[in-house]
């Protein structure tokens, strides 16, 4: 551009000398004006560039208020910091003054606290509300959603059942997939009804499908739970689980949480009994490799507490309580960490054009790997 300007001056100067009649195309005053203009243009350009350079940080600050990088940093902040107090997950009454889900005193990055995670689940009696979380995050101009679940899905389907002597043999088909992609896995399955427990191991093949059969004696009846843990063959820390409820010699079972409200926290299972006629028969914990009976810690009016053992198995724990309500037996369960969960804003209702940033992170909870998806949105 400046070159163009210089060329035009040269052209004018050449025209002044080249005229055949000896008269000038441009008077001397015009040349002076051009020189003055050139100085002015250089000044104006310098001023504009200078102003642009000076203003850039401020403009960037304003335009980046909701940019993806900032929102991704917020997601990392929640997963890498313990929050305040650092052990806020363990204590029922404590609401964090700053939000963070990382485990205190952990040497691993992205290791989350089992209790902080469980308190995000609305089914836990000591769960935090979204408003409490949002206030403890301390950033007014963003909304967020947190989803935590296993790395891959496990689905269970009952294929057949038949009576063989004193037992009924149930056959199940299990599928282990991630977004449709098969995941070969080893399976550990437990069937629980009243005081009876049976365990079988099997696996899913390269197409992610496996099957097994399991015997249940006909001397027991009522709601029966089939707990299935799947461990990816590629990496033993990738674990998924699912629970399938069915009636054994009885009617279709009632939905989970009908008779009991189960809230694990700080390695204590807090049980709230819904009906006074309910009697608990047995409380047990199951992981991929182990199962134990839980010891009672305390009993109150319609409440019971059980100690949960600190197991080193890289697997979620499933806590199962069996009992009687009148003459019919029931079985109810909860996982620890209490997953899957979703808390926060519902971005599916967001208006078109709203900025939403989603970040997927792999985290460790009690030696097993899980997937955390955080979604962030700011004002448009």
């Amino acid at each position: 551009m400046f070159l163009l300007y210089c060329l035009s001056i040269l052209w004018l100067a050449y025209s002044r000398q080249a005229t055949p009649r000896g008269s000038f195309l441009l008077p001397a005053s015009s040349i002076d004006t051009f020189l003055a203009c050139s100085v002015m243009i250089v000044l104006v350009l310098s001023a504009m560039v200078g102003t642009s350079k000076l203003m850039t940080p401020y403009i960037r600050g304003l335009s980046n208020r909701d940019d993806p990088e900032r929102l991704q940093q917020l997601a990392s902040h929640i997963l890498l910091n313990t929050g305040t107090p650092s052990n806020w997950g363990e204590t029922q009454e404590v609401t964090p003054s700053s939000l963070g889900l990382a485990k205190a005193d952990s040497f691993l990055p992205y290791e989350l606290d089992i209790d902080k995670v469980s308190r995000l689940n609305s089914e836990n009696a000591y769960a935090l509300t979204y408003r409490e979380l949002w206030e403890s995050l301390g950033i007014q101009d963003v909304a967020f959603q947190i989803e935590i679940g296993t790395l891959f899905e496990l689905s269970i389907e009952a294929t057949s059942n038949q009576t063989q002597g004193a037992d009924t043999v149930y056959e199940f088909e299990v599928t282990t997939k991630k977004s449709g992609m098969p995941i070969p896995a080893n399976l550990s399955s437990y069937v629980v009804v009243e005081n009876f427990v049976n365990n079988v191991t099997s696996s899913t093949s390269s197409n992610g499908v496996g099957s097994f059969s399991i015997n249940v004696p006909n001397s027991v009846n009522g709601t029966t739970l089939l707990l299935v843990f799947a461990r990816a063959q590629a990496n033993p820390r990738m674990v998924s689980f699912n629970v399938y409820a069915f009636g054994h010699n009885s009617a279709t079972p009632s939905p989970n949480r009908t008779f009991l409200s189960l809230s694990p926290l700080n390695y204590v299972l807090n049980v709230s009994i819904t009906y006074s006629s309910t009697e608990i028969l047995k409380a047990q914990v199951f992981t991929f490799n182990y199962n134990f009976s839980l010891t009672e810690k305390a009993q109150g009016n319609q409440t019971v507490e059980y100690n949960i053992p600190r197991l080193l198995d890289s697997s979620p724990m499933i806590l199962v309580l069996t009992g009687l309500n009148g003459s019919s037996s029931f079985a109810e369960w909860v996982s620890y960490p209490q997953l899957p969960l979703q808390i926060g804003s519902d971005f599916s209702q967001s208006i078109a054009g709203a900025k939403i940033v989603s970040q997927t992170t792999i985290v460790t909870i009690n030696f097993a790997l899980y997937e955390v998806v955080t979604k962030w949105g700011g004002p448009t």
Partner: protein
Amino acid sequence: MLDNRGQTRIIEAFLAIAVVFSALIISAVTFPSSPTLTKQKSLASLGIQALIELDINGTLGKLVAQENWTAIKQSLDVVLPIGVSFNLTIYDENLIQLNSQVIQNTNLLGRETVSVQYFCATQSQNIQFFTLRMQLAWTR
């Protein structure tokens, strides 16, 4: 008929327009980074975080030492989101490629990739060091 003064005014007008447009262009050039760059940064972060998580307790180093390329590929299939393509190359201390088979889910040819590098070691008495270079791209 155009007189000399008229020609000068026209040239001045063109120059003024050029000055204004050049100022706009300069301002545009100095503006913040593009969204594509942020997306690539996020992909790089995803890749390095996946490798870190897989290497907890030395699992990744152990799999490399065992030359279990299938297990490494399957692990990455699980930890990376379904919309991410990857290609992993593993080198020893002398930067000689170790993986005898390709560790990738889909071909990255023609895609805008981001590359991350991670170092790991075996947790045994005879320690071996490995360099892992992973290229990642979003599946369009």
